[in-house]
């Protein structure tokens, strides 16, 4: 298929993006979370393929590290790569979301730093999947170009703040990402950023638009999950005959 003629359905995003992550080298369970993250990005009006394609590529190429290790400082937990290269957001996102889920279940405030993450915009997408139960999660980063972005997620939804009010989710990494969970439900920190007006498309009715180039990358990783066909598998591996003129 070439998914750019019409929007992708959510079911297609789930199917292809899950397996694209697997094709890039992740276990299936991480692929499932990756697809949910992609849908969240789409719900904000982002092209999810554009955001995830660099993360898939850097993971598959070995430019990003899949192994996350943790280090506890006095006031903060740090997650970092086990090697001297960027941390894969596809692996680090679920780790921090899980950590947040544990803190939320215990009704604790907490703060964590993810060091040198390859694609920062994926981190809030994973966090959004966690039930925060009355708390507020703040995810902040300063991109390689120096632009600060802050995303706030609570049970009512999401707000994005960025310098100049412009959201750059595609070329913002690698950089450190700070994730804080508090029991407060409103923000008092503006940090010189302006709220971004999100388009919030109705992706259930309108589908998800993806760019041709990043979609080709996602689809290319998806295809790595398919088993090449042979005459034998074509004849014996599936039901029904090769012709049916009953």
């Amino acid at each position, binding site marked *: *298929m070439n998914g750019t*003629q*019409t*929007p*992708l*359905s*959510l*079911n*297609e995003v789930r199917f292809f993006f899950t397996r694209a992550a697997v094709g890039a080298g*992740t*276990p*299936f*369970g*991480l692929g*499932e*979370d990756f697809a949910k993250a992609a849908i969240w990005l789409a719900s904000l009006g982002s092209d999810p393929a554009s955001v995830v394609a660099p993360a898939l590529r850097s993971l598959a190429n070995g430019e990003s590290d*899949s192994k*996350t290790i*943790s280090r506890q400082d006095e006031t903060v937990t740090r997650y970092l790569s086990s090697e001297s290269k960027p941390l894969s957001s596809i*692996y680090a996102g*679920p*780790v921090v*979301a*899980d*950590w947040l*889920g*544990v803190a939320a*279940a*215990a009704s604790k405030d907490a703060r964590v730093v993810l060091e040198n993450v390859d694609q920062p915009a994926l981190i809030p997408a994973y966090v959004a*999947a966690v*039930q925060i139960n009355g708390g507020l999660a703040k995810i902040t980063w300063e991109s390689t170009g120096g632009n600060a972005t802050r995303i706030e997620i609570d049970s009512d939804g999401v707000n994005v703040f960025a310098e100049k009010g412009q959201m750059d989710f595609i070329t913002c990494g690698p950089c450190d990402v700070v994730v804080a969970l508090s029991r407060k439900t409103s923000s008092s920190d503006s940090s010189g950023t302006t709220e971004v007006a999100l388009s919030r498309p109705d992706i*259930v*009715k*309108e*589908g998800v638009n993806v760019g041709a180039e990043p979609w080709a990358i996602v689809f290319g990783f998806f*295809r*790595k*999950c*398919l*088993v*090449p*066909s042979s005459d*034998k*598998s*074509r004849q014996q*591996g*599936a*039901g*029904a*005959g*090769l*012709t*049916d*003129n*009953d």
Partner: protein
Amino acid sequence: MHQQQKTENHQQMQLRPAEQVMKLERMGASFQTRLSFMRQLIARMHRENWQLERLRFDVDEQGYGTSVYTAHGPERSYSLVAFTEHIEPEQRTDRVIAEVWDGTFSLFDGIPQDADIARLRANTPKQEAGRFLSSELSLARGNKSLRLFEHVVASLAQGKQPDIDLLADVGYLMRTTAVYGSGKFGCADRLKIADRPEMAAPFQAEMLAVYLIRWLTIDLVNHVARARGGDQAVELHRDYARFLGIGNSTGLGIAPFLVKYPVLINNWVQARETALARVRALSSASASQIASFQELVEQAMVFAGEWVVADELQTARISTLQRELVDLKEWCRTGLSQSQPWDMLYRYAEENYSLEGQEFVAALALELHGELIDDLGSTMSADTEPKLDPAMTVAGLRQIIDDYYGWALDTDYSKNASQQRFWYYSEDKLEPRLGDRYAEPGAELEMPLAIGRDVSHLRDRLSGYGNNETMAGFLMANPDFRHIVRRVQAVVEYPYSEIHDNLLEADVRPLDILRFKLAFFGVSKFDPKSDLWTRVNMYQGAPLPDEITSDEFHQWIFPVKPTSSGSAGAS
């Protein structure tokens, strides 16, 4: 039936446990019930007085062209847009890998305009290679039964009705080879229609598409016969037409589906088992109920007598079922007069009948209790999916495994036979296939259907962790178990979510999985063609479009072959 009474009934009778009903052998003996999805659709159309209308029929003398059939519900309309064309016999295959079909179909949300039909004409015949919008709810295709289609047309053109034995032997003019929904190829996601009452039960859009395809096939034989025979031609007798369903060829694609949607499968089974428990809890049966049930059993005996297949194993099972139905008829003379008659009925079947007989009786027991159980139909969908609980401890997860996955831990996965098979998507149009792990390439790309094996490995891995370690910590070090941890956690809330057998076993029978799903759809007359695929019949005996609101044809569970003079034998 008041809610309070339902609750009391439910409390009095325990549901059959998952370890009993989710074994492959029993799943492979499933039958449709009044909660099956086709049954729910026809019942709703009858209850709500749906109007069915042929809006367009631009087909040539051979039956090739464009048609539109619309179903008007109380609030919304749905239209089947159909394209029929000539294909060469050597191109006709029921496999996913086919490229052309006799008929291709889209179910449109509303009434399509010319521009919509033009867009669909450019895409629907391409099926998986086409692209669709959220205005389309389902995509399907089908191939004619050449031997029956031509015979019916030739007979009608000559002014005769077709041979009823041949008509009954095949049972359909066209068989669908795929009916897609929920977001496939750009079609609408289930979420778009989930809050519509008429779509609350699972697969209602797909079932409606098939029902309208059945109408089209009957119109096609009448039209082509008229074109060929002129004034001499006659219409297909409506008793014959009603006895025709739509065939379906189903293969391996269903198996991954059942594992992929554990909450959905749980909800199907939970509803059916709750229904059975409610009925079994009834304290008595009235004389009229007993008489109605005895009539139903007699009709079922005729139906089973007409269920003829080539498969030796299924033939033997049908023969056993036929004997058991004779016995059931005898038992009913006194059995249903006892206290808790439906429980006694089920217990008698469980003690004396084959699995096929037991499940047949369970389905029969539900049939006369619509007021008690029909509310469960709308609970069979699932718009949620399992969520990971990262705060759960290793001890907590281990306990769930020990409580719910004994079936998985009993297998020795170090033996080759325990992992002989692997399921995969082929690069040929993503066709699902089943391979031999030790003889074919691609096992490293297998679908995640090895639930038993993966749970067993998870149990082993957990032994290296302290009881109080959280899943967050465990999964950070072991991300390859994320999928199975999420699944295991869900089973507490969704106890019927797992098939209690090893789908990698050397002698696994995918056919059992196919039958289980198809029974929930409401199909009948399972006709296994191998361990990998089956043909079935959908809507055989269902009311015709102009009968949908009539009480006369409302009960159609056991259609019986019409007599050769053209009158239906029963139902």
